[in-house]
């Protein structure tokens, strides 16, 4: 009987757990270690953040599901990984002593560590800005936002700044979605004329979203996401600035550096800025008790896998095989990193270094569907290793499809959403040399109420899938 341990029950980890539990849970020991006793459906936190969805609608309790599919659940955090002796140390949530959990295969699916400290004054706990990156901060954002609604009702004019709060932040799509929902909410409250909405981002151009932008065919002509988003912002009277790396925030202003090395500031009343994502601080210890974390993870704390690291951007751009295919650590081949936890070989968007030496780069997003796909792939490969001693599945981000539906108004009648359909996620200029690295028959960008319907259907089906209910295997990640 083999032991498979999964650290983290996000999209990647929970997907891996339901595949492993359902397929081999009877014959092998599957263990999940997670800080929270629930799976959080993050895409809908945007609606929680403006008070349009109740918190319980985005949470799925894990214990019952895991009991049903023979997955042992440890409600706690993993502190150390001992890859030579194949065990991890897990600390129960009630703070008791660390428990040793042995493994034959380990899946690190910890998700990101939100690096609030990377920007002074950033964040809901020790800073001045708000967040929709987790449930409690989204609830607090909702409360703060409602206070500003009251102020606007009293005639006060409020400046709302949404975007990213570090020169190397990712997840611009989530911030964009939050901004759009705020606009829609203000319109519904008839307070839109009392608010100045502002988009502040590190993207090289508007609509980049960390994936190099999206080029799509519409009625025979090629359009791009920059023009698409510019039209939306123009229509909704939203000001914007890109190529900005936020360096510091205080209670009134956001201080940034731009591509030319100039410093500036943006005043705000209410701000939601996504922090830099780093790897969770897991310590890797060898058999001689030496800290070998630097051999297993990159500088940002993400786990090194079967990618080709160190290529300059110009070379990476034309090296689709540099992206990892099976997300397996090359040194400890029984360790896999799924979802945001793996180290990408570089950025998808064009990186930039300012004359002052600041790196301003929209780093590659690996959230949502991409995380789920990698979780499924890793689980299937571990099943293959246990049953047939071979790995059979691979999928690089240069081969991977993803769809992201960004709500721009939470109403099935008068709302809308932007469907961003991208194939592949990372442009593959070898396979698609003439169409900006992507399959133009699939890649698409569209806004309308139909996308809002799809968004709501995805919410319902993904929550259903998270419960591992009948037919869950047929629901795409």
């Amino acid at each position, binding site marked *: 009987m083999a032991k498979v341990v999964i650290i983290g029950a996000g999209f990647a980890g929970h997907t891996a757990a339901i595949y492993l539990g359902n397929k081999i849970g009877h014959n092998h020991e599957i263990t999940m270690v997670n800080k929270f006793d629930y799976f959080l459906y993050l895409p809908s936190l945007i609606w929680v953040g403006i008070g349009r969805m109740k918190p319980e609608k985005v949470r799925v309790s894990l214990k019952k599901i895991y009991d049903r599919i023979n997955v042992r659940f440890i409600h706690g955090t993993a502190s150390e990984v001992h890859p030579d002796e194949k065990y991890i140390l897990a600390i129960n949530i009630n703070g008791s002593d660390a428990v040793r959990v042995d493994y034959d295969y380990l899946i690190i699916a910890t998700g990101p560590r939100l690096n609030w400290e990377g920007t002074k004054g950033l964040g809901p706990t020790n800073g001045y800005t708000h967040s929709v990156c987790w449930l409690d901060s989204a609830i607090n954002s909702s409360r703060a936002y409602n206070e500003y609604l009251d102020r606007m009702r009293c005639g006060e004019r409020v400046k709302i700044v949404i975007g990213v709060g570090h020169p190397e932040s990712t997840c611009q799509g989530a911030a964009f979605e939050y901004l759009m929902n705020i606009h829609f909410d203000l319109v519904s409250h008839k307070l839109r004329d009392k608010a100045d909405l502002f988009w502040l981002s590190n993207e090289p151009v508007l609509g980049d979203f960390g994936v190099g932008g999206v080029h799509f065919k519409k009625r025979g002509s090629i359009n791009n996401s920059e023009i698409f988003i510019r039209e939306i912002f123009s229509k909704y009277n939203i000001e914007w600035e890109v190529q900005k790396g936020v360096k510091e925030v205080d209670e009134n202003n956001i201080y940034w550096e731009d591509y030319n090395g100039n410093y500036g500031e943006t005043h705000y009343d209410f701000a939601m800025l996504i922090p830099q994502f780093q790897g969770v601080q897991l310590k890797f210890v060898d058999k001689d008790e030496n800290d070998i974390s630097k051999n297993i993870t990159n500088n940002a704390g993400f786990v090194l896998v079967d990618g080709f690291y160190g290529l300059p951007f110009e070379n990476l751009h034309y090296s689709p095989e540099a992206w990892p295919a099976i997300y397996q650590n090359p040194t400890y*081949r029984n360790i896999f990193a799924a979802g945001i936890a793996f180290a990408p070989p570089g950025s998808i968007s064009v990186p930039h270094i300012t004359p002052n030496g600041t790196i301003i780069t929209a780093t590659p997003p690996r959230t949502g569907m991409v995380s789920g796909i990698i979780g499924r792939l890793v689980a299937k490969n571990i099943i293959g290793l246990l049953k047939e001693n071979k790995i059979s599945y691979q999928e690089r981000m240069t*081969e991977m*499809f993803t769809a992201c539906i960004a709500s721009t108004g939470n109403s099935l009648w008068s709302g809308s959403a932007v*469907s961003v359909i991208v194939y592949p996620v990372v442009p593959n200029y070898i396979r698609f040399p003439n169409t900006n690295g992507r399959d133009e028959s699939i890649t698409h960008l*569209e806004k309308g109420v139909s996308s809002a*319907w799809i968004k709501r259907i995805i919410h319902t089906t993904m929550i259903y899938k998270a419960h591992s209910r009948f037919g869950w295997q047929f629901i795409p990640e």
Partner: protein
Amino acid sequence: MASNGVFWTNLKIYQLWRFFVINFKILKGVEHSKRLPKFVIKYKVSYVVNKGDQPPTIINTSRPPQPGDRVQLGRNEFEVIKVHQSIPPRGEFCFLEATCKSIESLP
């Protein structure tokens, strides 16, 4: 032009059509992704012995060596002490280097 766009965005019958089109694109994309060929990784392992006369030997294998594994190279048996990736994988091939130490010589 802008009001024309708003008209189509708000026309529910047209949006119902777009609902099916977008879903079709999503399912097509999922199917393209899942249609990727299954593959079996082949490992090209270069066995290097720390000391002694044993020259480096390359062996193709379907499973990667692990520290502690024993391998026969020529007439001698060796134990793998360290495995690392020599160059990044290419397609279905994974290139490893296994450092070994001598155990015993066969008669």
